[in-house]
């Protein structure tokens, strides 16, 4: 049976793992190479590494981190942040990523999704969507959550899928880093609207939250960062609890 994926996310700034609350107030959480290997050993089904500053002067640092992280990692590895054109994606794949995540650049130019998919396959293209509740709907924000686009998250997810995206990484900005639970309504809205997998992100705080987002949110995968880094929830323990609650997971692994 196809299992629900638990994805550990490393937000990286200048070569270090950091984590904020609602996209600000960053705390240091360690070396990305060690964090990724530890999560894989604990049973993470995938690793996502997001370059949260992604300025051009730090780009080489980032590619170096990607390369060192990928070397000993034999589970799927996604890299996002600062990918603006095909050549940026090529450099990240060359460094060892299996998939890339694009956000602002895809909103600006949706044909970028198809260009990368044509070269590396749809399975290698994750479109990341940061959404916030605005006036009863879900609005897409870009530039690390700083700029509202006026676009509806559901419609954008459908368009991204039609352009060749292989997966949607859907982050609730309202819940990001709060550990108050995923936004199941947001996740379900998007998961029901597209046939490609939807990865829920933002708000993970307990095993109960994961059970809820897989059941009522109908997520295919769920991603978390802060709870895993600071040891509040060990992935192995989380998987044991999901398994006990009859959520299909890769366990034991």
């Amino acid at each position, binding site marked *: *049976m*196809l*299992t*629900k*994926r638990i994805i550990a996310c490393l937000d990286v700034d200048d070569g270090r793992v950091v984590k904020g609350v609602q996209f600000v107030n960053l705390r240091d959480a360690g070396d990305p190479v060690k964090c990724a290997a530890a999560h*894989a050993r604990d049973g993470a*089904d995938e690793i996502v590494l997001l370059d949260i500053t992604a300025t051009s002067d730090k780009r080489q640092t980032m590619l170096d981190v990607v390369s060192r992280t*990928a*070397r*000993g990692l*034999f*589970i*799927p590895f996604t890299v996002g942040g600062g990918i603006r054109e095909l050549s940026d994606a090529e450099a990240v*794949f*060359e460094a*060892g990523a*299996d998939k890339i995540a694009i956000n602002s650049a895809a909103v600006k130019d949706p044909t970028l999704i198809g260009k990368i998919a044509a070269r*590396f*396959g*749809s*399975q*290698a293209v994750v479109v990341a969507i940061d959404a916030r509740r605005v006036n009863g709907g879900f609005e897409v924000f870009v530039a690390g959550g700083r700029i509202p686009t006026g676009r509806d998250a559901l419609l954008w997810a459908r368009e991204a899928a039609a352009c060749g995206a*292989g*997966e949607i990484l859907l982050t609730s900005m309202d819940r990001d880093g709060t550990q108050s639970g995923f936004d199941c309504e947001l996740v379900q809205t998007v998961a029901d609207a597209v*046939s*490609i*997998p939807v990865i829920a992100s933002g708000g993970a705080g307990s095993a109960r939250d994961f059970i809820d987002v897989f059941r009522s949110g109908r997520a*295919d*995968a769920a991603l978390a960062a802060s709870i895993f880094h600071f040891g509040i929830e060990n992935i192995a323990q989380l998987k044991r609890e999901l398994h006990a609650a009859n959520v299909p997971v*890769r366990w034991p*692994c």
Partner: protein
Amino acid sequence: MIAIVDYGAGNLNSVKKAFDYLGAEVVVTTQPEIVTTADKIVLPGVGHFSALIGLDNAGLRDALLRGASAGKPFLGICLGMQWLFEGSDEAPQFAGAGIFAGRCRPFPSSVKSPHVGWNSLAVREGSRLLRNVAPDSFVYYTHSFQAPVVAATTAATEYGAQFSAAVEQENVFGVQFHPEKSWTVGLLILKNFCEVR
């Protein structure tokens, strides 16, 4: 030496990296002559079945078929396994190698497509490639088309219906999943391939 065949269908770094980790001598190549001189052949590949046209364009098809019929250990991964069948509904005009009977088809409409994530193997006994792989091991998939269960199937996976997760006939092996991304289970399978004589 193991030749990893590059015909322009996606990123082969992960496959090479896994063999490097196992200490195998591997070369990524676009050259039919190198495939011909290699001891073993790995045909990876992701994406659309029509990408396999790259094999014909580069003159690789004959080198692969000759290698397989000469008894060289041959491993097709994902699209590379699908190529070992007769063809695929994804690109009906393009012929596969026909080493295994049957055609690749889309998933039933009852399930989401693509099939992405970790799913379990129902392993049949006697496979050399899957030696010591526990019966219900999980492996990582990402694909939209699937090969039928045939006599040569050594492991099946359930997604909407049963499909071939692994096939094996003498020196020719295929896996639909990605062993290079399937953690310790995947590394064991690649190690088994390295040790096939």
